[in-house]
């Protein structure tokens, strides 16, 4: 079964792909080809893993019409707890990695349950849990940096190459593909979208919105946990700063990728592409040796640009449709004008479906 994209979505992808190609060419030329060198490419992909994952984590909560402000805090706690357990408690490093994922899932489900039980807006719930988790993260590691030497085998995965690409990037892409498939081919995925689109209609179709919310927050947490795991595996060490700047950036990719904030949509491919765009901006900053502040400026502009462009296209399309209809209408009026008095034209038999005259009974002159 072919995946049928709404037309506007398709062209949004085209714009993103074109942007990526153009950006890559500019960077390639200005770096004298160095940008396409092996080291540079490895670096490029290496640092795509976390943006893709946190973008996906945010996308899933957006799908049900929620926000998750705790993504960074979840990822941070996941990485830090894993680090503490491995370094201080002597846990097997791979089990430590599993702990990171578990922490993510548990924290996410807790968010979901809180949203469902308290009926408080998810924005506020995750704001509160974020605060709590930041405290926990600090309590775990204090001010030290736990060196990744403590989990050398996992850290080796962080540096490994699969198919010539950084393993963690491949992992992120696998997660993205799984998320995409889940939203396409599982009823759970469809139910999240249905709940996000129209809660009441979903209820009438026998879908439990409570379940959708819990699943969405749980999945979002799990993927944030994945991002925590990737940090655990690839950073030189883990400290209280991990996850610190994920909050706003987790929104950038899904929004540029075309996910609506009102719920009911996902755009896995778009989110991944958008992460590429943001990463290109990063690379450009390094290439042209600009201050990091410029990255934010450009991301802001890109977000505004993409959404405004989408709007422009929409309104242009509806204007075109209106114009077409008007042309047809004018044509009909002009041809009708040639045959005078339309009302006087010979009577056809009234359609059989005509309602029984009833109002006329009521009308007594």
């Amino acid at each position, binding site marked *: 079964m072919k995946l049928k994209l709404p037309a506007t979505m398709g062209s949004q992808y085209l714009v993103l792909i074109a942007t990526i190609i153009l950006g890559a060419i500019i960077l390639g030329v200005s770096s004298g080809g160095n940008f396409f060198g092996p080291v540079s490419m490895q670096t490029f992909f290496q640092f795509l893993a976390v943006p893709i994952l946190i973008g996906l984590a945010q996308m899933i909560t957006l799908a049900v019409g929620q926000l998750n402000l705790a993504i960074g805090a979840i990822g941070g706690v996941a990485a830090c707890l894993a680090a503490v357990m491995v370094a201080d408690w002597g846990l097997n490093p791979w089990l430590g990695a599993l702990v990171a994922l578990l922490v993510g899932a548990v924290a996410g489900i807790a968010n979901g349950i809180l949203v469902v039980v308290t009926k408080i807006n998810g*924005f506020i719930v995750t704001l509160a849990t974020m605060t*709590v988790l930041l405290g926990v993260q600090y*309590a775990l590691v204090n001010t030290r940096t736990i060196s990744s030497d403590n989990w050398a085998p996992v850290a080796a995965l962080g540096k490994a190459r699969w198919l010539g690409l950084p393993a963690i990037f491949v992992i992120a892409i696998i997660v993205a593909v799984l998320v995409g498939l889940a939203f396409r081919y599982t009823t759970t995925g469809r139910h999240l979208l249905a709940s996000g689109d129209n809660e009441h209609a979903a209820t009438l179709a026998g879908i439990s919105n409570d379940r959708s919310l819990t699943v969405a927050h749980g999945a979002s947490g799990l993927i944030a946990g994945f991002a925590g795991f990737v940090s655990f595996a690839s950073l030189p060490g883990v400290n209280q700063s991990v996850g610190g700047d994920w909050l706003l950036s987790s929104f950038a990719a899904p929004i540029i990728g075309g996910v609506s904030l009102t719920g009911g949509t996902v755009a896995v491919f778009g989110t991944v592409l958008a992460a590429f765009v943001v990463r290109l901006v990063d690379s450009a900053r390094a290439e042209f040796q600009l201050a990091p502040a410029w990255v934010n400026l450009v991301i802001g502009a890109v977000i505004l640009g993409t959404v405004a462009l989408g709007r422009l296209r929409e309104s242009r399309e509806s204007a075109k449709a209106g114009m077409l209809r008007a042309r047809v209408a004018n044509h009909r009026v002009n041809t009708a004008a040639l045959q005078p008095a339309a009302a006087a034209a010979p009577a056809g038999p009234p359609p059989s479906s005509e309602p029984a005259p009833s109002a006329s009974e009521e009308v007594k002159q």
Partner: protein
Amino acid sequence: MSHATTPAGDARRRQGTDFKRYLTSPQFFLALIILVLVGLIGAAKPNAFNGAFVVAPLLTSIAIFTIVGLSQMMVLSIGQMNIAVGNMAAFGAMFTGMAFDLWNMPFIVGLIAGLVAGAAIGGLTGWIIAKTGVNSFIVTLAMSFALLGLVPTVYSMLSPGSAFTAKPEGMEFLGRGTFLDVCMVGYCGPAAIPVMVVPVLLVVLLVGGLYARTKLGREILLTGANIKAAELSAIPTNKRVVLVHALSGALASLAGILLATSTGSFTPAIGNEFMLQSFLGPILGGTLLAGGYISVTGTFLGITLTLLIRRGLELFGAGVEMLNIFLGLILLVALSAERIRTVRRRKPTPTPPDGPPPAEPAAAEPAPAESGATA
């Protein structure tokens, strides 16, 4: 604070029920928790009421963050969000800083320059939202990124230390002065009350009055309640959206300037802490994220509660980890309690035969579904 009253004659007749309604409002609930907390802290730490070192700084923060909360509340009132409050604060304050430092302008002029800049950036944001119809979260998020890039860049271009440090006459007085500095016939006011509360109180009253009494405020609320219906009811919704964002920007900027005057200099870090707090105050206070319903009093109380919790924890010497954990948990508990309370109270809802009008104009009063319930 925004307890604007209904016409005098009616008011007396309704007094009894007004009181009952007040007792069941989220604002009363907040006020109660605040009082209990103050009592607890005071009992455990008698020295907590140190005027100069506890009360005055706390009141200063409450004053500043009430403005931050109002800045967000205004945007919430039209059913939108302003993710860029903090960045707008930094942007507006930057202009005031430049006015003082680069152009040697007097205090008032610099203040106005900052407010105008804040209003302009807010207005621009509102204009983009109104023109494109793109979700406010997205537009203000983009704006926040853009300003996050722009503001430090401008600072580092214009000042070697990335800060504007000039202090024109009046800045110290507003930012750090207390009534101790206000002396008449040899006697001075209490050191516990910062001078800043006066202008802030004024702003709070203005915002409260706007929503409670004016045509403009009502139109803004209806725009928030249902923007399509508002436009079809002859409300110029686009203009209202732009105006609200401009006012939000101006308020954010005012908060940024106040913060700068209280810490002493203008830096790009101003407003870093505004965004999350800006939501807590209004929402704890009963403002709806969905729009159409606000509470100025509630915003003030919500801000007061969170800052009081924070200060209380500090007084007991909570470390950074415990502080965050407690703060988060207390917020969750407070919000859930409030939720359970309203849900329970809404259950028996016999429609009253001829319920009296609400005590406060509905703008500044209880959540929609309860007006029939509590009358």
